[in-house]
């Protein structure tokens, strides 16, 4: 997994590539924990994400909860595999997916 971050005032763009699973999710979690202060719009770009496990979903859930209190969160560029996972788990109802 690789994480690319772009910060522009309150806008925070995080591009996650590769596999977001139990081994890599903690890294994303740390990045978000450290980086979300003052963020009003968090965009997570998944256009090069290949797979997401439950550990990855929980990081998204926590990020969404934090952003509920301070702004908005958008997930974009989701491929079919990841989209199906969002659908079967009910995450499509929780996340804003573009």
């Amino acid at each position, binding site marked *: 997994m690789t994480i690319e971050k772009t910060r522009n005032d309150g806008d925070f763009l995080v591009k996650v590539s590769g596999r977001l699973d*139990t081994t890599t999710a903690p890294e994303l979690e740390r990045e978000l924990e450290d980086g979300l202060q003052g963020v009003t719009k968090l965009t997570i770009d998944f256009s090069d994400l290949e797979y997401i496990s*439950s*550990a990855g979903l929980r990081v998204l859930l926590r990020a969404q909860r934090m952003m509920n209190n301070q702004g908005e969160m958008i997930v974009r560029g989701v491929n079919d595999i990841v989209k199906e996972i969002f659908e*079967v788990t*009910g*995450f499509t109802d929780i996340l804003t997916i573009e």
Partner: protein
Amino acid sequence: MRQDLPIADASGGFSYAEDGQDSSCRSTERVTVTMSDAIKIELTGRIDSGNAEEVKKDLLSRAGDDRDTPVILDAQDLEYISSAGLRAILQLRKDHEQLTIINVSPEVYDIFDMTGFTQMMEIHRAYKEVSIEGCEVIGKGANGTIYRIDKDNVVKVFNNSDALEEIEHEREVAKLALILGIPTAISYDVVRVGDTYGSVFELLNARSFSTILATEPDKLDWCVNEYVDLLRKIHSTVVPEGKLPDMKETALDWAKFTSEYLPEEEGSKLRALVEAVPHNDHMIHGDYHTKNVELTDEEVLLIDMDTLAVGDPVFELGSMFNAFIGFSEYDHNKILEFQGFDYETAAKFWDKVLKAYAGTDDPDVIKGIEDKAKIVGYTRLIRRSIRRKGLETEDGKAEIELWKGELISLLDKVDSLAI
């Protein structure tokens, strides 16, 4: 098209008699119908303008004149349906409002979806077929076997081919728990595996806490902390109303059963104590022992979600007491068989867990909580054992007497169960 004879069982689920082509035997078969009954009709091949009229007549005559009879269309062998075919179904629905279509292939489901039929009536997709031929077996339990089907997924195949309802239930509650932030595996799908069903989960490279306690005794304190952290997380999760069963209702059933075997005074006190537990909308796992908590690379995960409920933590602690102590109190060897570690380890673990959960070492406070948990625990154990014919063997009787004695003395001194 073949028409099966539907026979509703007492629980309201449907089962079908072998073959019901001969309609003359229907009246005799129907003697067994207790609740509602349904007529099941198979749809096959292609239904288009060429045969829609014929199909319509056939459907109407098979469904019969009784408007209240639910009709189930089994679309397993249906390859295509045109608008003329859809009109035939609409016609049938005019006479039979309770119309359900099952086993619909993805292609045909798209047609039903685009035409708005999925909004109008109950339409169920067919279960995907999964083959386990040549797949690695990665686990075996009492209910089934777990196979690895690809890099990221396993399928838990159930021994009992009637387990569909339980499988769907577990999947639903696991999904709910995941959304509420409980660390658990993703349940992707329910699938058909040969003659039975399976549940597809993400693959976890994990070891249970039971295994850790059995093989690495020096990690006991670490296990206690992680185990209690997760327990606190579960118990602090608020569940939207109506999403999970209320554990108090279940516990009331136990209390009613077990109170019949107690002296009258203690029996009625037991029922009153459970009755008086206030409603609580926080989650409890219901079977929170160390086999159901697993350690993956980085995380502690909860599994076996089918017992998830809401209720006071006392109901959770009661079943935990049973898993570590109560169940093996008469025969200490039982725990080794069940958990893989011995009774002394279990007792030590349980004691430390209680202290960590209560956040105190004060023996009076701990004893107070444990006594409440024991009342729930013994009530359940006595019922369980009697229902499994425990009173018919000498050992069974002695075990029940031990639990009963403990329960009666606790009932004489405890005045509320809520924690």
